Structures are given as C-alpha cells and as structure tokens.
C-alpha cells in the first residue's frame, strides 16, 4: 500500500537571479516528480520587438537581463548583422570580445562570491560571510568591480550599456581610457588565480551526470561571440541551423520554455562547465594550466561549475589584458549598412551559457520577427533531470535538508530566471 503523498515546499529559492519555484513529489521514499516552476511574469519581448527599428534591438534586449545585458546585446547585433550582410572590422571584433570579458568577470565574480560560495562555507549570503572571510569577500567584490569598470569604459555603464550598436559601437574608447585599466587587471589576474585555487578545495558532493555539453566552438579562440554550436557527441552546426537541432517546448508549470535536442529528445547542458570541457585547449595559458590542475577532463559534476567559473574569470582577465596591452586600434566606430529584407541567427556565450537569437528584418529596417532562446531555458530540463538523480541520495533526510540540497544544485547552474522569463520556490510533495 502506498503512503500518503508528501509535498515538500521551500517557499524561497534564494541567491538566483529572478524568481521561480521547485516542486518535489515523493512517494514511498522515491522521487516521483520534479518541476522547476518558473513563475516570473512574462514580459513578452519577442512580441514587443516586432515593428521596432533594428537599431533599437540591442537596447531593448539588454533589458531582458540586468545581470548579462551584454550577452543579449552581442547575440542581437551578431544576428542582425548576419541579416544585413555586415561584417565588422577585426578591431571592432576585438573590442566586442573585450566588452564580453568585462561581463564574464562581473557576472562570474558576482555568482562565485555572493551567490555560490556561501553554500560551501555555510552562510546565508556573501555579505554574512564578510565578518569571517573579510579578505575573500573584498577580493571578490574587487574582481566584480573590475568587470564593471571595463563595461563602463566600453559600454558607458555596467548595467544596460548604451554603446553597443548594430555594426559596432557608437563611439570607440580612447586609448588612454583602456590603458588606465591595465594595473588593476594585472592585480586581478593574480587574484582570480587565487580565487580559483581557493574554490577548487571546497568539499563537493560526489555526483556526476553523463552530460551532453553544448557550447560554441571556434577554431582560433575560446569561443564567445562566434563559432559553431557544438555538442559532446560531435554535432557542429551554424547558429542558422539551431531550430533544426534544438526545440523549445512549453510546459504547464513554467513561464519559461524548455529546450531539448531534437535528435535525442534529451536535455543538455550549457554554461561554463560545458565550455571548459569542450574548448579547454583554447583557454589562455594561466587558465589552461588551472583547468588541467583543478578540473578533470571527464568532470561532469555540476557543483564544480564554480571551478569552471573561476577558470573563465582567469581566462577573461588574460584575454582582456592582452587586448588592453596591445593598445587596440580605435578607428572607425561602426560599419555602414543598408536596409534589406533578411533573416539572421546568431548565438553567443552568455556567462551562464549559450544564448540564441534570430531576427527577420524588413526592407525599412524594422524587426518582422524575433526568436530568443536564453541559456536558463536550455538548462531547465537538465536541472530537473539532475535533481531526479541527485535527490534519492538524500531522500531520507528532513524536508528542509532535501530542499536545501535541491536549492544548492539549482544554484550551481547560476540560473537566470529573469532571462528565462521570477523567484524560485522549492516545494517537495511526498506521497
């Protein structure tokens, strides 16, 4: 005879961006259902973009996410430039990578120090840690600030930068503005290496999943803005073919659409762990060394994403420094273009994973259709699958402990629920 259904509900999954809920149903000591319930109020960007001038798109899509606005701007401008047939100059391309390095540093340093580390050290928040770990917290905030400074210089401001344009930038930075950042970034590179070694020593739950990693891959560089969309099992496609291989489906318990691979019908993983594992050989030297020392080639432990984030902070500092020291040529600020009817798709690597945009534009330079697949909706199915496999190990614990374990796993994904469409609430139902 089966037991009475039991529901465990955690009302507030904290330290994630945006709001949602998690419902767990347990019957006879077994996990019966896991639902990541995103109830973030939908803001309907894909609808409101229609009819807008294409120049407005990077300003509007930035507002999808205050944590990773640059990712939205980069995916937007790359997709629109493909629709318009524009190729930006190598100098502008390099400045875009530099801008993206700023967002990776800012977002990763925020997640590592203020959102994720408290789980390993047993605190409610990064700020609550400050009394016992003042140096570590201050170091983390300083890294975050460096990311913001780079965004300020290149983007005009860190949240919703104003300087990203279709075709390039409104104004390229002055050489003196970039050079002034070098001393801080030299300090930051060393600090980021120390952060990565520090977090790699934490106690990680023993848990591995046979992930299908999905990330951009580029022949010449650690992919950020350009490259093919690649998977663990060898698929390599242009972003234009995304819809042939990946499908978003709506589920009743979420305002975010969930993505699956069409070939396998299965979930997949995007984000720092996927990127480091697929593109490890292209990390810059210090980051590569750390990856080889601290993250096994076969590592598929979602909790160790914090190490992958550290490695990527180091990479971003190294790459930023090499660009800053090379005094990038700051010539023409943007490429000219003419309006034409067209269709363009692009994916770039947001701090939390692959971000796909596609636009159709008309001959008057207006958006006819928009399609956006954020990283968190791609990871959502994988998070649920992970929970189904992770929670049986703690199923005999108290409801609070189960909920806590579930939250920690979700948090390791650095989910951005605002992107995916509101507050994560964990509810465990036992039957």
């Amino acid at each position, binding site marked *: 005879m089966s037991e009475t259904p039991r529901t465990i509900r955690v009302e507030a999954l904290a*330290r994630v961006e945006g709001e949602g809920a998690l419902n767990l149903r347990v019957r006879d000591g077994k996990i019966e259902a896991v639902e990541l319930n995103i109830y973030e109020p939908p803001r309907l960007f894909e609808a409101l973009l229609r009819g807008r001038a294409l120049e407005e798109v990077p300003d509007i899509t930035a507002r999808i996410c205050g944590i990773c606005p640059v990712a939205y701007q980069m995916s937007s401008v790359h997709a629109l430039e493909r629709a318009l047939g524009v190729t930006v100059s190598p100098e502008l391309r390099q400045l875009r990578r530099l801008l993206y390095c700023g967002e990776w540093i800012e977002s990763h340093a925020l997640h590592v120090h203020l959102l994720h580390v408290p789980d390993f050290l047993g605190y409610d928040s990064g*700020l609550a840690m400050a009394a016992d770990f003042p140096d570590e917290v201050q170091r983390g905030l300083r890294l975050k600030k460096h990311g913001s400074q780079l965004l300020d210089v290149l983007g005009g*401001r860190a949240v919703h930068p104003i300087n990203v344009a279709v075709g390039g930038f409104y104004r390229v930075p002055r050489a003196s503005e970039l050079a002034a950042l070098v001393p801080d970034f030299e300090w930051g590179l060393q600090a980021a290496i120390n952060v990565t070694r520090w977090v790699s020593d934490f106690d990680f739950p023993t848990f591995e999943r046979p992930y299908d990693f999905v990330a951009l891959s580029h022949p010449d560089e650690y992919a950020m803005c350009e490259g093919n969309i690649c998977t663990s099992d060898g698929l390599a496609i242009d972003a234009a073919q995304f819809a042939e291989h990946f499908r978003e489906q709506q589920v009743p318990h979420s305002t975010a659409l969930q993505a699956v691979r069409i070939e396998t019908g299965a979930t997949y993983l995007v984000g720092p762990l996927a990127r480091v594992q697929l593109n490890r050989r292209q990390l810059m030297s210090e980051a590569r060394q750390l990856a080889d020392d601290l993250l096994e080639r076969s590592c598929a432990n979602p909790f160790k994403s914090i190490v992958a984030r550290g490695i990527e902070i180091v990479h971003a500092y190294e790459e930023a420094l090499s660009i800053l020291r090379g005094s990038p040529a700051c010539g023409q600020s943007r490429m000219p273009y003419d309006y034409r009817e067209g269709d363009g798709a692009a994916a770039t690597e947001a701090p939390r994973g692959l971000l796909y945009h596609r636009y159709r534009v008309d001959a008057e330079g207006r958006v006819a259709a928009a399609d956006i697949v954020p990283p968190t909706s791609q990871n959502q199915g994988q998070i649920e699958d992970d929970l189904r496999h992770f929670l049986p190990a703690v199923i005999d614990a108290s409801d609070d402990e189960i909920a806590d374990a579930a939250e920690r796993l979700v948090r390791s994904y650095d989910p951005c629920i605002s992107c995916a469409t509101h507050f994560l609430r964990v509810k465990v139902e036992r039957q």
Partner: protein
Amino acid sequence: MHKPRLAVFKFASCDGCQLSLLSLEDELVALAARVDIAFFLEASSRVEPGPYDVALVEGSITTPDDVQRIRQVRRDSKFLITIGACATAGGIQALRNWADSEEFMRAVYAEPSYIATLDRSTAIAEHVPVDFELRGCPINKEQLLEVLVAFLAGRRPRTPVHSVCLECKRRGTVCIAVAQGAACLGPVTQAGCGAICPSYDRACYGCYGPSHQPNVDSLAAQYEATGVPREALVAGLRGSFNGYAREFRQASDRLASGGGAEESSS
C-alpha cells in the same frame, strides 16, 4: 540598538536595479553593517518576515497575483521606495499597453492559457502609495546609495529633477541635438545617469523618464520641423523604457492621434 530592516522585492523586471545594490562594491560591506538586510532573495537565503523599515521595490505589476502581493508589501513596509523604470513607469514591457496583449501572448507561447497575465504593465504607484521613486533604466547606484543614506539620516534624498541637458553642460559635452541635429530626448529627460549617451555620440533615449515639467510637445514639434518623422518620435517616446510615464505617454498619444506637435490636429 535596532538596525533598520531593509527588504528588496522584485516584480516584472530584469534584476538590474537590485543588482545595483550589489554593485556598490566599495560600500556594500559597510552598508550591510548599518542595516539589517531582512529580505533580499537575490543575495541571501535568510528570509525574515515583515514589518520592514524600508522596502526597495523593483519591477512593474503585470499579473493578478502581483496586484495582491504589492498590497502585502505595502502593509509590511514603513517606507516603500520604487527603484527603476519598471517600478516607476511600467518599463519596456508597458509597450503591450498600446497593443493587443492576447496577441502578444500568442506570439510568444504556444499555450497562452497556462499563463496568467494582465493586459497592461503598470507602475507600483498605480496600485499602492509610494514614498519615493528612484528613476532610471537602470538606476544609478550612487543615487541608490544617496537614497539609502538619506533614509538612514531621516531626510529626503537629494536627487535632481532637472533635465539631462544640465549634465551635458557640466561634462562639457557638445550638444548633439544642436550640433548634429540628433533627436535627443535629453531636454525632457530627468538627470541622474550622468548624460552618458551624448558623451558616446548618441542621442539620449529617455531611460531616466520625464524631467520636472518637461515640454515634450514643444520638443517634438522642433524635431518634426527638422524632418524627424512623427512615427519615429512616437516610437522613441514609447520605447524610452518609460513610455508609460504620464508626460511621455500623453505626448506620444497626442502625436499618434495627429495632434500635439507641429501642426495641431487638422
């Protein structure tokens, strides 16, 4: 001594304004020592029930549940401060207020029936009394710090209500409306951002919302006279991330209905 209890609430928004609190990298630890952060889900697992001394509210009201939730936040909070364009003007998602919102839902979701949403995205002040509104998309973190320090000191925050133009003059930025003929919204937009856009060679797009007593009709007439199409002026005001703020909304509605700017309705 009792530390003031701070809470941060989110409604329909991008998280960028509450992130501004965490982006006070140099002041954050000191600030956290002066106030008791009792509810701030993005930053802390510690969840304390109200009442709160001060609530920062981000985001607009777009769902039936949120209409109820903001009332509870108001009951729980001594001072309610809205942060950002969503909370003070409805945000970019208020573009639906001029559209068929059911059609909007169908454009994004295969099964719109799963999702409860309102026809309009509205500011917090349309639902409950608000003690102070901090403008901007996103807010300026220095202004947020001023608001919190003012609150701790028991005085009104000093945030300017004049236009972006004064910030350009202070920075020494050449006026791009005059020199380049750009349809800059700076003359009718509230200061606070630091006049960033003109310093990057682009027109202000209004993300801090209307300044005190802006003459939007007159500015629109001027731009129309210099050849800016009326549709572009309407789209610009509505796409300002503050399009549903009263002064911008009324001006864009007058323009769209044929009145308002250069020629009155004929």
